[in-house]
């Protein structure tokens, strides 16, 4: 796949590196950061691409790309795993989602909690982790026709093959299937526990447990 890689400028102070093997971007990002390559200020992984943010006076793109192409793909490191408790009965769209998928609530929950998900990127809003892939049994749902103007922090959502948790109140179009009582981001403290390359697994809790855990940090 190395042959299909491209490095293209995003203006003068950033580059987009495309064509990495699927799901390896976070490992590549860790490797590139460890080089402390002259002029590189930030490295952002997303799925099979990297954003390289640079000081244009100091960065030599040709040299960087030559080194990148010669580097061996990063070894599969042990993934950090986060467990996120979810109260599915609080999911506003759960009935609708189960209707579309012809599943019972129990079947949906068993599938959604049944496997660890990879975090392929963090973005959309601070700390929002793009997780997946969903089991085919519960994947393929389109975004909702009209996006909600406000989705509460902690809301767990699905669309297509992806799932995620809104860490902050935001508008959004995904299908809402549950709620976590945990705080997943604290901007003031710079607290961002989930990074691209980590794994996340969901566990089902009831509303009483939700009350006990409310406001605790992941």
């Amino acid at each position, binding site marked *: 796949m190395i042959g299909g890689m*491209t490095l*293209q*400028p*995003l*203006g*003068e*102070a*950033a580059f*987009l590196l*495309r064509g990495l093997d699927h799901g390896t971007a976070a490992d590549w*990002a860790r490797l590139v950061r460890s080089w402390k390559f002259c002029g590189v*200020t*930030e*490295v*952002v*992984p*997303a*799925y*099979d*691409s*990297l*954003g390289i*943010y640079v000081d*244009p006076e100091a960065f030599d793109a040709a040299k960087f790309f030559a080194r990148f192409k010669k580097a061996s793909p990063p070894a599969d490191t042990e993934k950090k795993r986060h467990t996120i408790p979810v109260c599915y009965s609080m999911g506003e769209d759960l009935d609708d989602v189960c209707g579309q998928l012809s599943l019972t609530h129990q079947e949906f929950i068993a599938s959604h909690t049944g496997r660890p998900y990879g975090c*392929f*990127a*963090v*973005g*959309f*809003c*601070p*700390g*929002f982790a*793009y997780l997946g892939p969903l089991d085919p049994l519960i994947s393929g749902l389109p975004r909702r026709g009209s996006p909600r103007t406000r989705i509460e922090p902690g809301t767990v959502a699905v669309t297509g093959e992806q799932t995620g948790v809104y860490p902050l109140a935001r508008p959004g179009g995904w299908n809402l299937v549950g709620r976590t009582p945990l705080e997943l981001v604290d*901007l*003031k403290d*710079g607290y*961002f526990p989930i*990074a*691209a390359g980590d794994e996340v697994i969901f566990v089902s809790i009831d509303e009483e447990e939700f009350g006990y855990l409310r406001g605790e940090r992941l």
Partner: protein
Amino acid sequence: MKVRVVRSMGVTTFQDAGRPGYRAQGVPPGGAFDRGSMAVANALLGQSFDLAVMEVGGPLVLEFLEDGFVAMAGALFDARIGGAPTGLPGRTAVAKRAMLTLTPGRVGARCYLAVRGGWQVEPVLGSVSGAAVGVGEEYSGVGGPVGRLDDASLGDPAASLRSGPLRFVPFDEELDWAPGRAVTVSPQSDRVGIRLLGAGVTSPGLSQSEPSVCGAIQATPGGELLVHGPDGPTIGGYDKIGTVIRADLDRLGQLRPGDQVTLVAVETGEAKRLLAQREEELGRLVAFLKIRTASM
């Protein structure tokens, strides 16, 4: 020096140089959209370019609770004190209990208000960028006036208000699009993104999101161009046409709904030359203003 916000409409926030370094956590760098005008507003008070300013995006009324100085740069808002015209953009003394009224004009989208020592706002991740300016709230600079400043008007309008094409470094995407046609700024434009209508290109979108940057020009399924602003998402799922050069980002931040603009492609080397030229010009103006302020 302290003020109370009597009235504020539109988006008015505190801004500084932003918080680079948190993109991997999904946090956009933010910061003043027109950084040159932030620097000029601060230079008018003899202070560092990145002290916190108000980025004013709509009508604003401030009541001064103490005597003080205020400096304004950027968009040509109508500025009145107690109903009387002022020499702003520039700097002026404001007496206790006076009302400063700012009303958007026909040129530029955002004006920048600086006070001595910068507005004192609690930073988040090292920056005040995005902190709301709330109606009824009180905000202050630091300490009283250091010496007396005379009123001064900025002679020329800000460089960010100059007309002319928006230049961009092309992104090698296979899109059936040729720049050169004038596009119109949509009312659905803000610090997250400036939307441009009438480019005559659509794109279904990427299968997966990828990193973005302030100034990235993207083709959307609806046929608009979406140019990410300083609060734009760190990753996005639209095809990129190119990226507005850094020398023109301040001008991007001053585009108003209804403005017409042409996109013109330049090479990276030319973009660097234009940035150096812009920084030299801005540096000269800032140094000149600071020297004049210091000598008083």
